[in-house]
């Protein structure tokens, strides 16, 4: 049974760039159909099975070039893809606060509702610590989510590891410039921008979060690369 080496290499190349599995599947299934047609044509011309398979692979072209075209096509089809550097410079300022606002709004409604129903306590402000705790958790989790999303976006658009490291650093700096405070006594949650930043425990937490998220991202990315390389080698051997 012959299989297309080219298809496997294209799939591996796309996986290394973090392309979604559905897109890889779409590209490779069409390439495989094309390869099968080209192989059948070779067999009809009287080539041996191995020669027909090899010729079909040659006709498909260089796998790296196909993968490059797929990545370029994916990049051209969105604004973020067409302007990755601009997007990645601006988005870190607004992405996390916007994400937080979307999540925090229903939470604020819940706060109002629980305040009037005296949920979980007897005094007039029973759940203030719970709400502020949730607000802080939201603050940090949206920061992590925004960083990981931007790293993934940069990776999918073919920006290299140096760019992604620079992005992590940039995200950390913008996170420090963003001001956030949740006060359980005053029942206030405030967020905005402040410069210069103050060095305190939250600054240390923000830097630690960005360092850990960057490490987690690079670990995941290298695992994907390793897996896709192994898959290509297995197909080539088969």
């Amino acid at each position: 049974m012959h299989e297309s080496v080219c298809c496997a290499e294209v799939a591996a190349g796309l996986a290394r760039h973090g392309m979604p599995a559905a897109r890889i599947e779409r590209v490779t299934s069409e390439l495989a159909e094309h390869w099968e047609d080209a192989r059948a044509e070779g067999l009809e011309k009287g080539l041996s099975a191995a020669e027909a398979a090899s010729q079909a692979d040659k006709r498909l072209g260089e796998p790296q070039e196909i993968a490059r075209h797929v990545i370029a096509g994916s990049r051209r089809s969105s604004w973020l893809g067409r302007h990755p550097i601009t997007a990645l410079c601006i988005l870190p300022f607004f992405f996390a606060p916007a994400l937080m606002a979307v999540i925090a709004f229903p939470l604020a409604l819940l706060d109002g509702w629980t305040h009037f129903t005296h949920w979980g306590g007897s005094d007039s402000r029973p759940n203030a610590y719970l709400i502020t705790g949730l607000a802080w958790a939201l603050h940090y989790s949206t920061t992590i989510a925004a960083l990981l999303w931007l790293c993934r976006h940069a990776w999918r658009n073919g920006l290299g590891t140096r760019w992604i490291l620079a992005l992590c650093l940039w995200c950390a700096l913008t996170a420090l410039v963003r001001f956030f405070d949740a006060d359980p006594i005053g029942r206030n949650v405030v967020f905005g921008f402040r410069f210069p930043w103050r060095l305190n425990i939250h600054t240390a937490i923000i830097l630690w979060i960005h360092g850990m998220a960057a490490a987690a991202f690079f670990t995941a990315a290298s695992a994907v690369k390793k897996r896709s390389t192994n898959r290509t080698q297995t197909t080539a051997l088969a």
Partner: protein
Amino acid sequence: MAKGNPSFLNGVPELVVLELLSRGEMYGYELVGAIHERSKTALSFGEGCIYPYLHYLEETKFIASRRLTVDGRSRLYYRVTAKGEKRLAELTKEWKRVAEGVGLILGGAHA
């Protein structure tokens, strides 16, 4: 197709694909065959590179696809949309303008 092509050549694959698909619904392999046949093999390229272009054109709604089973083989057929027809008209006009300009230059050089 390659990186660094002059901007006036950037729309050529798009023009060729849209023009051929405007004449009838085709699947990838058939389309590549049509490009080779109609251009008398003047346009040669890695055949797999056609799919990223088709997917890009589909994402930008210039073409649409549907899976059909013909003679027991299931294949993805592409056709031009109304938006694609407009794009084709624009690209054809642009290509004729560029070709005319190049023709004038070459004509001048040989005069």
